[in-house]
């Protein structure tokens, strides 16, 4: 049995301590929030401290931080599926009570059951969810290519229509700021595509002028993206990052507890 310090320490911190905490929480409800927050401090600080403390037990390949990375990959997989339980509960309730739109809940659960079953089949048989050795599609990939991809692509493509409609009905230069926005948008839209060449296509004498103007607009667009846009985005990134970093410390130290469903003072 591999009993490296890193692994044992992680098992004690995130395995044994929670078990003790759960046992204590069964008797003392006030500890049901305090002990998870206490354990969370370690989970938050290990990756931070590991970056600055080059000790093998912490930041080496067999250290606590490296092993914790592998653990949290597994935990992320469980977390991704968490919402499915909620959806199944709500859909089942809708079907059971014959609420408005219940047949669509049947469709949803059928899609979930069929696709999920093909995924489980792929895992159990070892065929996976991609291509078989002979190049044919597994059942999961068959559903993915013919149902999932067309549906996702088309639903997102509807945005193009609404955006065009909004451009016509809502995009107005009401004040100086909106005018700056409109002008920048117009210049970038003209600079990213050969719009002038397209408009000049039926008029051969204008081709050369259109090509030159298009090149100029392209360079202007690049400058707009590099300098004013780059500066604004840089400011946004710095501000957001500082805010996120300070929020991170608050969450790790247990000052912010909203993510556990707790309010202030709980």
């Amino acid at each position: 049995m591999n009993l490296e310090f890193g692994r044992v320490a992680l098992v004690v911190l995130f395995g044994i301590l929670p078990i003790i905490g759960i046992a204590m929480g069964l008797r003392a409800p006030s500890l049901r929030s305090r002990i998870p927050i206490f354990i969370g401090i370690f989970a938050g600080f290990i990756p931070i401290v590991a970056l600055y403390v080059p000790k093998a037990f912490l930041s080496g390949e067999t250290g606590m931080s490296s092993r914790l990375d592998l653990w949290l990959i597994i935990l992320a997989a469980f977390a991704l599926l968490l919402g499915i339980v909620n959806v199944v509960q709500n859909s089942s309730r809708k079907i059971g009570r014959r609420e408005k739109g219940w047949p669509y809940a049947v469709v949803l659960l059928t899609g979930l059951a069929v696709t999920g079953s093909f995924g489980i089949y792929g895992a159990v048989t070892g065929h996976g969810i991609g291509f078989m050795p002979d190049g044919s599609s597994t059942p999961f990939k068959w559903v993915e290519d013919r149902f999932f991809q067309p549906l996702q692509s088309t639903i997102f493509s509807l945005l193009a229509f609404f955006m065009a409609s909004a451009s016509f009905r809502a995009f107005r230069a009401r004040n100086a700021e909106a005018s700056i926005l409109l002008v920048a948008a117009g210049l970038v839209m003209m600079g990213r595509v050969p719009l002038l060449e397209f408009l000049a296509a039926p008029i051969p004498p204008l081709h050369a002028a259109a090509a030159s103007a298009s090149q100029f607009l392209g360079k202007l667009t690049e400058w707009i993206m590099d300098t004013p846009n780059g500066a604004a985005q840089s400011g946004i990134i710095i501000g957001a990052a500082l805010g996120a970093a300070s929020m991170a410390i608050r969450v790790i130290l247990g000052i912010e507890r909203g993510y556990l469903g707790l309010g202030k003072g709980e």
Partner: protein
Amino acid sequence: MELGVVGTWIAALLTLACLSFLYKDNPFFRFAESLFAGVSLGYYVGITLNQTLMPNLWEPMRQNFGQNWDLLVPGLLGVILYMRYLPKFGWVSRYALAIYVTYYIGVDFTRRLHGEVLPQLGRAILPLSHFDSRTLVSAIFMLGVGSVLIYFFFSREQGPVTKRIARAGIWFLMISFGAAFGFTVMGRVALLIGRLNFLILQWIYPMLGIS
């Protein structure tokens, strides 16, 4: 990718069902929407099981438990996460949730500082050791970053000087948002181009025998 005749028809009909929403909400769109939601969730099941839980959790423990015994802990923590749906024992899931959230926030903390704040501040600093054409560009860049940061500083009421600087920040932001709109148009339309390309060239043309 070749979908075959049946596959192409399924994909085409589902595409048309989704596009029918543009006319008005209708049962075909609602069917397609619900099917999309269900298939998406089933998709999550398939990929997490095949690509993470089997190779990273189950197989290492099955093949060499002595080396990987500690993976029992994240496995159990993952199961505990689902206890939030039990009314009486929902509080037990806080352990898994606390570890999950604080770990990723801890990783994010160093990422933000080393990957965002420091490099971006480095770019914004204007070297004055020599002057050339790039100095003007850098000056504009520095003005932009500084004015945007001042605009977003809400902890104190802005004075007459900072108000003017913040106004310049708004102008930089408006240029940025306008440019972003231009890019967004391209991004959204690209999806439509892809779908219409499929419908016309891979469904309608073969149906009509057009090569």
